[in-house]
């Protein structure tokens, strides 16, 4: 590691006259789709929302969101990533930009477009050309040494979510250690411990999203 992220923060939101684009990344199975669904349920009455999923092999995540009816079908788009999920959110964001722009054209006045990355490794990071803000989701059951190992997502995401805290006691993960290791590499950027089992509305994360979405006064 050894990267210095301090000077690399997002500056003031570049979002003027278009939806805020929020990337949600993290390892396979950490809870990205479940969090996306929770955020849609918590925010859809106050924000105009759409979602792009980056499925690896199927359209499973988009199908899940449609099945759960968290949003109308035409607000959910799936993108394929040619076996390279990080390429599609970082090096070559074309397909995701196309999907976001199509959703914006179809739904004028969108406040927020969530882009869920395909499950990836700890080096994945959204390009700033695609996401204005990004959340990185870790799974407690993935091992409590993951925040210490760091990686671009853990260190530089605007919000780090340590998810599935309800499983900590079963897998022997030390939550306090995870939180302090994360804080050490994150230079003051926020960390939220979360369980979608005990808090299906993802209250803390929804509040953070509200704080970054510039909403015009009604």
């Amino acid at each position: 590691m050894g990267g210095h992220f301090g000077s690399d923060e997002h500056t003031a939101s570049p979002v003027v006259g278009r939806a805020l684009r929020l990337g949600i990344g993290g390892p396979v199975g950490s809870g990205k789709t479940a969090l996306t669904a929770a955020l849609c349920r918590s925010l859809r009455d106050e924000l105009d929302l759409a979602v792009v999923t980056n499925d690896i092999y199927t359209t499973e995540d988009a199908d899940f969101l449609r099945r759960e009816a968290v949003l109308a079908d035409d607000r959910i788009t799936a993108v394929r990533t040619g076996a390279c999920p990080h390429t599609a959110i970082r090096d070559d964001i074309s397909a995701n930009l196309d999907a976001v722009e199509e959703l914006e054209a179809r739904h004028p006045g969108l406040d927020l477009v969530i882009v869920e990355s395909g499950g990836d490794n700890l080096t994945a990071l959204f390009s700033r050309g695609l996401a204005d803000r990004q959340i990185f989701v870790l799974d407690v059951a993935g091992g409590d040494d993951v925040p210490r190992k760091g990686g671009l997502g853990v260190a530089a995401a605007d919000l780090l979510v340590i998810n599935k805290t309800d499983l900590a006691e079963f897998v022997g993960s030390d939550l306090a250690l995870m939180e302090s290791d994360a804080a050490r590499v994150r230079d003051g950027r926020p960390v939220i411990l979360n369980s979608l089992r005990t808090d299906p509305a993802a209250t803390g994360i929804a509040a953070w999203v509200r704080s970054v979405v510039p909403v015009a006064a009604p």
Partner: protein
Amino acid sequence: MAGTDAALLLLADSRLPAGGHAHSGGVEPAVAAGAVTDVADLTVFLRGRLATAGLVAAALAAAACAHAAGPADAFDALDAEADARTPSPAQRRAARAQGRSLLRAARATWAHPALDALAGTAPHHPVALGAATAAAGGGPGDAASIAAFTGVTGGASAAVRLLGLDPLAVNRAVAGLAADIDAVAARAADAARGPWAELPAASAPVLDLYAELHAGADLRLFES
């Protein structure tokens, strides 16, 4: 030739952020059908694709490049020629998605009237490539070479990912196709000097069928 302009090398670079990485050029359905299983199969597949879809794409790219200083509305006619040479709807969608992405990348990089003329449209990829080549300072021969070359390298890289082929062996196979790529590009550039209606229309029915099967497949990694 004294050397190749760096600006043109950018267009041939697989790292060009123009959406190409999510397209396999028909390799994924060929792998699914068991037609490509190793480097030898891949070489045969790429040679066949180069002689058919590759030639057509190279000629369209050369024609678009030659036309870059011409009247803006004529790109529609060339785009219609591309449609007529792409019988598979899935391939037309894929070609337009890649054309739109390439146009975005080119417009973010260079300023040129041909790119302005295409702005807001989703042209076939070779049409966008021809305009981008002109914007980068190249001519029809360059556009044909880049189209023929990237058609081969895109499929080769998809095969490496799908089959876990040895990338060194695949690179050697691609190098072995270099003379064929050059020959196709030369033929394409030559053809682009004539009327558009007479541009090459070599067809590859199996690629068309693969593209349609692929679009309906449940499990796939690539858009096309």
